[in-house]
């Protein structure tokens, strides 16, 4: 019996840091904090978006969700059970990946049939015949014709390769598919096709998706909930609609203002965010965003804001959370 109220996967205060080789033998190795104190819950059958720019830790988060890397601290609960108590192999079948570059994430020496069948073989699901049938079934789900069964990835277009990658993820009947920038290597017309496909699959199969992206416009049509990350921390998270209607964190506002939609009368966007991305190895003090923030004030460079509830979402910004703390 699965309890509907317990999230499929819950991250509690998860951090991941990497030790970097330092310049000298006698120096202590420096730490790169890829993800810091991150809490996130993923509900069954939901689409959750993680947005941020390079170096914000979104790909490390994807690896943690996929079980490809263990967090340095914090806990992961799978349907309320600590992940340590679940079987790793079974977990891998429940959470499947789709990567950014469809060409390099498919083995060039295997046919589409072998690629899509591989997870079924690896997890020992079904018999030989049922696996062959399952491969045809998922290829149909992603709208690929049977004739690609014996094709190699090099014979397919980028969009078709991404469909194969999605079919491979679907084959074992996962509960969650983690898509790391699934369309950023694709053309706009192909991107539209793949995004529509993900929405179709979500409606038809009920599988949950985590969509990692840097494109706010894509996130809006796809996700129920959105988490915006900056330098390893979630700065704003909540229902997508609310975040788009009234973004609270200055970084979220900046990301939204940087979206360039086709509009010949708008000109280049006025930048709500200035400056360059800081080095994640030595993040700025206080709020990591303060050197680029147009609204930074006294406490921002000293005190790190905490993620607090306000206006139906969580924000980590002194502008907003102070008020709620006072009012609570």
């Amino acid at each position, binding site marked *: 019996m699965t309890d509907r109220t317990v999230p499929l996967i819950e991250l509690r205060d998860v951090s991941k840091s990497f030790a970097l080789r330092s310049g000298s033998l006698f120096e202590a190795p420096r730490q790169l904090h890829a993800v810091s104190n991150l809490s996130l819950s993923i509900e069954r059958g939901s689409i959750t978006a993680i947005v941020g*720019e*390079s170096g914000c830790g979104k790909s490390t988060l994807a690896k943690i969700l996929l079980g490809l890397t263990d967090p340095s601290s914090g806990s992961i609960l799978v349907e309320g059970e600590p992940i340590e108590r679940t079987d790793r192999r079974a977990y891998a079948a429940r959470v499947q990946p789709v990567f950014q570059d469809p060409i390099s994430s498919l083995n060039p020496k295997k046919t589409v049939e072998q690629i899509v069948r591989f997870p079924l073989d690896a997890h020992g699901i079904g018999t030989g015949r049922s696996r062959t049938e399952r491969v045809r079934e998922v290829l149909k789900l992603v709208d690929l014709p049977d004739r690609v069964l014996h094709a190699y990835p090099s014979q397919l*277009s*980028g*969009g078709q390769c991404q469909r194969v990658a999605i079919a491979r993820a679907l084959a074992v009947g996962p509960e969650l598919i983690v898509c790391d920038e699934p369309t950023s290597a694709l*053309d*706009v*017309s*192909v*991107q*539209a*096709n793949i*995004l*529509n496909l993900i*929405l179709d699959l979500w*409606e038809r199969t009920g599988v949950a998706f985590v969509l990692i992206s*840097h*494109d*706010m*416009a*894509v996130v*809006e*049509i*796809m*996700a*129920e909930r959105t988490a915006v990350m900056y330098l390893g921390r979630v700065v704003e998270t909540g229902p*997508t*609609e609310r975040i*788009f209607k009234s973004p609270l964190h200055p970084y979220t506002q*900046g*990301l*939204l203002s*940087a*979206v*360039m*939609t*086709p*509009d*010949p*009368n*708008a*000109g*280049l*966007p006025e*930048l709500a*965010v*200035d400056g*360059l*991305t800081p*080095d994640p190895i030595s993040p700025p003090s206080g709020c990591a965003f303060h050197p680029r923030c147009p609204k930074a004030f006294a406490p921002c460079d000293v005190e790190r804001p905490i993620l607090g509830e306000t206006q139906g979402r969580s924000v980590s910004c002194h502008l907003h959370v102070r008020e709620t703390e006072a009012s609570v």
Partner: protein
Amino acid sequence: MSAPAPVLDLRNLNVRLNLPNGRLHVVDGLDLQVARGETLCLVGESGCGKSMVALSLMRLLPKVARWTADRFVLEGREVGGLSERAFSELAGDRISMIFQDPMTAFNPVLTFREQLSEVFFRHRKGNRRAADEKALFLLDRLGVPAARDRLDQYPHQLSGGLRQRMMIAMALMCDPALVVADEPTTALDVTIQAQTLRLLANLQRELDLGLILVTHDLGLVSRIADRVAVMYAGQIVEVGARTAVFERPCHPYTKGLIDCVPVPGRFRRGDRLGTIEGSVPTMVGGLTGCRFASRCPQAADVCVAARPPEHRDGSHHWRCVNDEVSSKAPASRVLS
């Protein structure tokens, strides 16, 4: 009161690739004119031949490529017939290029100072100080902090955004008349992208550059272009002023492309985006008729039979059997 002579006048450019499995006609009868101070955006999806156009302008085509043009006039001078060696005197001086990936375009074992001054010394007489001054002037305009120290650094030491600014500076070291930028901001983060484009646009205005911006990003094009040329399968299918192309797109491919772009605030969650069915035809062998016909929602028999005629509405040209100027903006445009 005639229009100023274009800095580039290119007529009937054809590029063919001789590949083991056949000859690809990747650019087919392409015309381009760019004036000083003008930004022309060449838009299209991967495989449409837009990068091949950029590379032919710099004469950097791969060895398997053969190109011809009826006219290749740069600043009033026919340069199509020049030998590679003679053309290399112009490349980097009168015409220069900004590449997509600043990591691979720079030599990793030389400092920026060495790489930027190399371009300068190749075409200009002058000492180190003159080269440094030029570099520092450009880097200052591009908002590079601590520019003097940055010049002594190596490519891996800078972030992608700064590296791309170094590349822009390198392209401008000799005050070229025309700059060809191939997806200059695609590799950058979204907030850095807008910033870099603004800096590039400012410098372009200040230096009165002709700029050809090759990109697949229609949003970007609509914000920065003076004129837009839409390419499909090696041909320009529509060209015109920015507002004309975005507000009254006449070619079905242009309309389709604009409708594919997600627009914040226009869609509700779960809405499906517009798509273009099918895929780009391979360009092996001769194709008669409209190359977009196989994917076109309005295709008729005549489309397949012969190449559609060119229609004009002022400076707005398109090739389609449909000769009506569309009065309706594409669905994704927010009309307010």
